[in-house]
């Protein structure tokens, strides 16, 4: 398509505007992390010209960034000060493990639903979907009682299970659609050649669905990374994730915006790394099935 110079310029400007629109909130939030409290609410607002400080990061991560004071004592996850580095670790463990759990189980389930014919298969798909229809808050309280009974309250195992199960329906449905896009004839050919179902799944279908699995894993990771309600309800003082501890920056005498921004800015990094790691497969996964042959 031929475009005039004016049109190209217009398109470039529009593109940069869209980029700015997405990038500006991240920039502003990150810049808040580098400000003293008195520079955060300056009026008129200062977007660029403020004296930068790393104090908020030092408080949140208990590390010295060059001003000569030592690490903070480890404080319980419940809070009490703004040392939150272990909570970032909690988030990484929970999001990673629950993603692995959801993806492993969902891959097997999705392959079965895609390839195997058994009674009530279609109802099964609807049933999987229906588990996402109930509002999480309706499940949280019964979960609390069950978890207390099984000593799962305030444990990694408990939260990993919940997040894994929470992501399972979505993961199953997504992966099923990816498996559906892989021609069943490939499986049949392999069967004729004497391959078992497990071999076909492991050696042939799984590598072909890598993109879809990567896309599903990213979604599961992000859902777990940002989940609030279950972590709030099912944890106490042993573990907490970033979204929940972020709310502890709200104190009785105001909100520590700088510290909150420091944790928030740091929390972007692990999620960003995960996405970068699977990016190669991601584009293929997200576009898989967009063309029907």
């Amino acid at each position, binding site marked *: 398509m031929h475009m005039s110079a004016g049109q190209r310029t217009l398109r470039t400007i529009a593109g940069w505007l869209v980029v700015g629109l997405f990038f500006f909130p991240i920039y502003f939030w990150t810049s808040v992390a580098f400000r*003293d409290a008195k520079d955060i609410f300056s009026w008129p607002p200062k977007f660029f010209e403020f004296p930068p400080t790393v104090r908020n990061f030092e408080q949140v991560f208990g590390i010295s960034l060059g001003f000569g004071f030592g690490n903070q004592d480890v404080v319980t996850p419940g809070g009490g000060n703004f040392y939150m580095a272990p909570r970032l670790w909690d988030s990484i463990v929970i999001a990673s493990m629950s993603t692995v759990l959801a993806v492993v189980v969902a891959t097997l389930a999705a392959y079965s639903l895609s390839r195997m014919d058994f009674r009530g298969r279609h109802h099964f798909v609807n049933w999987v979907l229906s588990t996402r229809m109930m509002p999480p808050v309706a499940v949280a309280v019964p979960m609390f009682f069950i978890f207390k009974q099984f000593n799962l309250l305030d444990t990694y195992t408990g939260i990993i299970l919940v997040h894994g199960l929470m992501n399972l329906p979505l993961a199953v449905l997504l992966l099923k659609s990816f498996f559906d896009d892989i021609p069943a004839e490939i499986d049949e050919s392999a069967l004729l050649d004497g391959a078992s179902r497990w071999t076909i799944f492991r050696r042939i279908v799984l590598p072909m669905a890598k993109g879809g699995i990567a896309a599903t894993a990213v979604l599961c990771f992000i859902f777990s990374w940002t989940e609030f309600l279950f972590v709030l309800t099912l944890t106490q003082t042993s573990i907490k994730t970033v979204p929940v501890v972020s709310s502890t920056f709200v104190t009785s005498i105001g909100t520590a915006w700088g510290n909150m921004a420091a944790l928030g800015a740091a929390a972007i990094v692990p999620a960003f790394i995960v996405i970068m790691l699977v990016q190669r497969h991601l584009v293929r996964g997200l576009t898989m099935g967009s063309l029907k042959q």
Partner: protein
Amino acid sequence: MKDKDRKLYLSSLTDKLVRGEMGRRDFLRLSGALGLGAGALGMGLGPRPYLGVSSAQAQEAVQPSADVIAWLKEVGKPFAGTTLKLATESTPPSNAINSQLKKYFEEATGIKVEIEVLPLEQVLQKLTLDVASSLGTYDLYYIDQSWAASFSQDVFDPREQISAKPDLAMPNYNIDDFLPALVDGIAMYEDRMVGVPYDIPIFIMIYRKDVYEELGLKAPTTFEELYNNSKAITDKKGPNLFGYAGQMKSGHYALECEWTSMLWGHGGSIFRTDGTFSGNDEQGIAALDYYTKLKATMPPGVDGWTWDGQGQAVAQGVAASMLSWGEFFPYFDDPTQTKVSGLCEAVIPPQPIALRTVKDTGYGEIPGVGHQGGSSLAVSKYSKSPDAAWLFMQWATCADTQALITVLGGGTGPTRASVYDDPRVKANARVGAGTTRHLPVVRETIAKYMGSEPDLPEWAQLSSDTIPVSLGKYFAGGYGSSKEAMDDIAAQVGEVLKG
């Protein structure tokens, strides 16, 4: 100077600082001259444990009483290895205990204390779940004064604990040392003590002395003066500086707090003696009309602010006064956090135009312009370790610990009378982070001008939803008049009370 001599000299300096014989500035200068600087002492430049906690005193120098520690060691032995859990709002006392003081209790008793710090509404959610399940997942309850009625049957009355287990009672705990007004306003529901007063945010008048002096104004002593001053400042300094900042976020508890202060100050009350809503009577309408008038002098956007935005408005020099929680004052004095360090003064709230008595109101409501938002600390009846929890509660609320909390916790208001006179607390009454120079005003307000919300199980819903939502609607122009708004609130409150 040899290292040993230097340490001895430092020790002597620290001792003088703790006993109030030396100012912090001199202490820093002399210790700095020793080459030991603030960083070496974990002072000044050190990471602040939380918003509002200052390094006002050398933390190593602030030690608990030897008598208290000796008692804890003796009485705590049988409970060594126990773990206690407490869910609390992020308040200065809780944070000071969690980050700096509980280690003394844990070392002396062998009891581990885990404190979960949460926003207030999440604390309520956790406690409600704990009570509903009777599982005892928390051993101690942090109870906001507006929840006292709801949790009154779920905690031990401390007086009963003292008489039932005299061997576990702390010597000189002196429950009568708690300010009587706070016991009545925070911890009493009918004839039960729902724990003991633990913290006391209370409305005091905070204003910019420099601005007032520049315009020839005096600190407001009446509501009319408050309005006139506020209008004069806004007229002359606006839009860069406004006379008053409110906490008027639609639908938020903050709005209800400020409204009640105005209501009580105009001779009104929330409830009549028969338990019906009285905010729509003549005094109630006058109060809302005044509030509306005052709002016109406030910065734009005030109806999106809770006390957080209100405090920031003063801290950043956008507003020149506020009637709000005294806990803000030490924060305003912190030069690293605000632009108004040393420029603010605290005075008692404006005098009420008229004031009802408790006998004229319902549900134990205590009218007073100094709206209090205090909380109590209590041992849960569902706790698996109530005796160990009782030891912790006594330690956390004894006079010695409260003094340490006040010094380390950024000048928060103590709930015990004796702590206001503690030399360690008085030593911090100077301009700077963690100041206690506003505490005489806080004490006087508690004693003479304190207002407390009514105690009824439905109050949590009314104060955090029904009333502030409708007030927000009124300020957004959703009602034709103040009378119409108040009549509608009266009808809604009636419905809630009917169940």
